[in-house]
């Protein structure tokens, strides 16, 4: 897989971890289980990975992130899971495996699992 796309997916997965860690109820339960994660460490990892993205893609990522919480989403059943618009079937073709693709409707970065 394209390293840039790999990074973008990893960043979004870390964002999900941060969202859970910043939720007071979730965090309290995780602490009870002994599985609490320090939010500052997640943020540091996030920042480090964001800096690894190529400047042009990083600029795009930051623009989308200023509008939505989930700038990178999966395509399931032919739909962008951010805005639920249909995604052209050509997006799933082999020729696109190594490309960072964007939803034509909402602009989110798409990941085809």
């Amino acid at each position, binding site marked *: 897989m394209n390293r840039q796309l790999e990074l973008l997916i990893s960043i*979004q*997965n870390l964002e*999900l*971890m941060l969202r*859970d860690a910043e939720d007071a109820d979730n965090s309290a339960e995780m602490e009870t289980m002994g*599985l609490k994660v320090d939010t500052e460490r997640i943020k540091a990892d996030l920042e480090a990975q964001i800096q690894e993205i190529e400047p042009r893609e990083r600029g795009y990522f930051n623009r989308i992130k200023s509008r939505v919480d*989930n700038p990178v989403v999966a395509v399931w059943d032919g739909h962008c899971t951010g805005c639920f618009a249909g995604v052209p079937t050509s997006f799933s073709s082999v020729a696109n495996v190594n490309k960072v693709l964007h939803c034509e409707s909402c602009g989110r970065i798409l990941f085809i699992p």
Partner: protein
Amino acid sequence: MDIKDVFELASPDLFIPELEATNKQDALAEMVDKLVDSDHQISNRETVLQMLLSREQLGSTAIGPGVAFPHGRALATQDLIVVIARSSKGIDFDSTDGKPTNLFFMLVAPPQDSGNQYLGALAALVEKMQDDSLRDAFLNADEFDSAFKALTGEE
């Protein structure tokens, strides 16, 4: 969510009776491979493995005794999935007590899940695994069904 509900998220095809791996990274990779090989529409091995490794870097999920709960949310799944694995020799998983880890419950959750199933499943597993006798019974069970019965107390 109780332990029976959790086991409905697991299945025999997501059970590794004996891990071949002898270290942490290989153990995670073997569990992710099991997930990819099963019928759960996850084909993207690397992104799931990367998510689990990132979580482990933030602090080991081997909270003991002898049990680890590698977990996290991943774009690559639509459903909460539980992979269960055992290692009779034990694996160094950077556990909090410094001892080898024999039992692994890997939870991979979608970005959103109704009723926060993910946390409920994790809590149910952590609670059950605090019981020495249940843990031993689970570790010594021959197969998935008997392991399930060991935890739920079913005959």
